[in-house]
């Protein structure tokens, strides 16, 4: 078939041209599009185009009961769903004045940090794949799968756990779970030197990632960059430490920072966070062995559960940055307004657009992945 009669578009002569990145493009994380104006190999201007994953979550949540929304929230960010549940649940608890039992708080920290681990392992793979190191992607994803198995053991689901409910968690640890989790953690820790050899110390990767997508601290703060991306510019800000929620005040961990602010620094920060997550998880496991108690506070009939009027703004440090929910209740059985503030809303639009200007076309995908932008968070 020859499309001889297809229309040719005549454009005025120019040294610049437009290139569409996505939505169907392997260099795009998720379903997202970038429209780049290029002069030769250099990006002159970049425009992000979102909304491909828009499902109207905020509207849907106004239509559902407080308890029904537990099923909706994890679906807002696919690679790292647990912080979504935690933030929503904490907002509802703040509004409803619920007291979360101690054991439930430790269990929540457990799943939060496990989710951070899975997200970072996924990130290692994603970042490596954008620069052509596919082996790392295979390793990262298959190691992540071991953690997903632990999730399955604990919650019954691999990806969307819906484990954290307002007032506690859904179920207690099954017998033998903590031991098998410890084994997996040891395994992941044992794998890190291999990732170092393959990925972090790889001369070609260092060459490519150093100086790519560099931002300084002032820029990062200006553009509302949070999380590991902010810490890669040298500002030690971590909500887990600065606004401690759950039992984060009782565990020991370091806030990892780097100063270079480029793609490589962001990767190194995440590598450090994997180690810190392992450290936190081990402390949590120790606590869970000793702390007894109920795993959730008594709830009223969930189908007729009214939350007192008011508003709450809760924030969580997700693997991508500062995740926040603003929830308004008018005293009825459904939320009046839920606003989701995902960290990627800052990273994937304005920051990405600004960082890519002047970058080479080779690096656009790498910059997007190194920011760990999560399009569903932007689109909601």
């Amino acid at each position, binding site marked *: 078939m020859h499309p001889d009669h297809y229309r040719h578009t005549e454009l005025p002569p120019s040294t610049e041209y437009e290139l569409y990145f996505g939505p169907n493009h392997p260099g795009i994380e998720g379903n997202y599009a970038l429209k780049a104006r290029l002069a030769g190999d250099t990006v002159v201007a970049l425009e992000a185009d979102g909304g491909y994953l828009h499902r109207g979550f905020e509207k849907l949540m106004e239509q559902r009961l407080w308890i029904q929304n537990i099923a909706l929230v994890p679906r807002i960010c696919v690679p790292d769903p647990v912080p979504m549940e935690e933030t929503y649940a904490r907002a509802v608890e703040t509004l409803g004045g619920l007291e979360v039992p101690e054991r439930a708080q430790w269990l929540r920290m457990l799943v939060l940090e496990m989710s951070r681990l899975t997200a970072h392992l996924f990130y290692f793979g994603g970042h490596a794949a*954008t620069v052509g*190191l596919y082996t790392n992607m*295979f390793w990262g994803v298959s190691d992540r799968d071991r953690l997903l198995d632990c999730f399955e053991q604990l919650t019954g689901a691999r990806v969307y756990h819906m484990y954290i409910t307002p007032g506690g968690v859904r179920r207690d640890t099954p017998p033998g779970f903590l031991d098998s989790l410890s084994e997996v953690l040891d395994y992941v820790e044992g794998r890190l030197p291999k990732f170092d050899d393959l990925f972090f110390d*790889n001369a070609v990767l260092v060459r490519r990632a150093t100086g790519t997508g560099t931002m300084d601290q002032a820029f990062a703060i200006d553009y509302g960059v949070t999380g590991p991306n902010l810490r890669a510019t040298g500002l030690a800000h971590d909500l887990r430490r600065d606004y401690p929620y759950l039992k984060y005040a009782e565990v020991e961990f370091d806030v990892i920072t780097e100063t270079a602010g480029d793609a490589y620094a962001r990767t190194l920060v995440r590598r450090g966070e994997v180690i810190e997550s392992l450290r936190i998880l081990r402390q949590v496991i120790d606590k869970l062995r000793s702390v007894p108690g109920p795993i959730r506070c008594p709830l009223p009939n969930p189908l007729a559960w009214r939350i007192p009027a008011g508003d709450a703004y809760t924030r969580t440090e997700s693997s991508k940055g500062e995740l926040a929910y603003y929830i308004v209740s008018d005293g009825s059985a459904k939320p009046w307004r839920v606003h989701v503030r995902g960290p990627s809303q800052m990273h994937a639009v304005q920051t990405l657009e600004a960082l890519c200007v002047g970058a080479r076309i080779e690096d656009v995908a790498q910059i997007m992945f190194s920011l760990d932008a999560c399009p569903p968070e932007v689109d909601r």
Partner: protein
Amino acid sequence: MSIALQLLLMPLAAFLVGLAMVLMMRKVRASVERRIGPPWYQPLFDIYKLFAKDTQISHGVMHDVAIMMVLGGIICVVLFLPVPGMSGLSAKGDLITLLYLMMVPSLGMALGVGQTANPNGSIGIARALTAMAGYEIPFFICVAGAALHYGTTDLNQILTIQQHGGHLEHWGIVQMPLLAVAALFAVHAMLGKEPFEIYVAPAEIATGPMVEMSGKYLGTLFVMQCFQLFTVSVLYTTLFLGGGFSWFTLLLKAFAVVFISVLVTNVYPRYRTDDVLRWQWKWPTGIALLGLGMVMLQIGR
């Protein structure tokens, strides 16, 4: 064996060996990535399926012609490459002819991709030609050095010189190790493997030249890949590893060349375009020049 039969058998043998090399490549990649990998018939099935597509989109005459140029060029190369028992056209042309013919597929790709009018493809071709400028220089120096060393550009004679006495000491890699090393680097880039994979680069330009290729066009490129693996590895074997007395030794050596390349490729990301040139013009070219100097000293003595 009559020349007509040889002209038929040589591409066929090259294709089958190339298929096996593709399979090895995928299997090695799979085991580095800790998985099982495809079954043995996979490369063949892929190609058959692509040719059996019901709808095939062509982007114009040049697209069709170019893809034939790609395949024709690479088959020509095979015909000029002597293998055990079959010397094909190698008596009619020499090393220089071979090197010129080896460029035809890349140029053919450039023509065809231009017609598809996909910006990703154009960027890919620009990158491919740039990378070619990177690896062809060290490769030409290596070939020139080898020709100087052997005192001939006739591949059959080169083989005879190396196989003389059946000892390792006459092999190119023993006589001129620096050139052999430099040529190995260049061969790696020629095969388009990481870290020199810039012109395919799925995450950047969506497989570049292949972006608009569907059905039989992609199938032809798959076939070309088989031929390319064969020609590049056999050429290297012929120049530096003493060729083969029999198919068994030839294949052993050719597979070893591809194997080295495949092992390296799976643990590196890709370089940027400028880094490819910088690297190729620094290391392989430098080593090749040193090797050339040594060859000249040897001859002068």
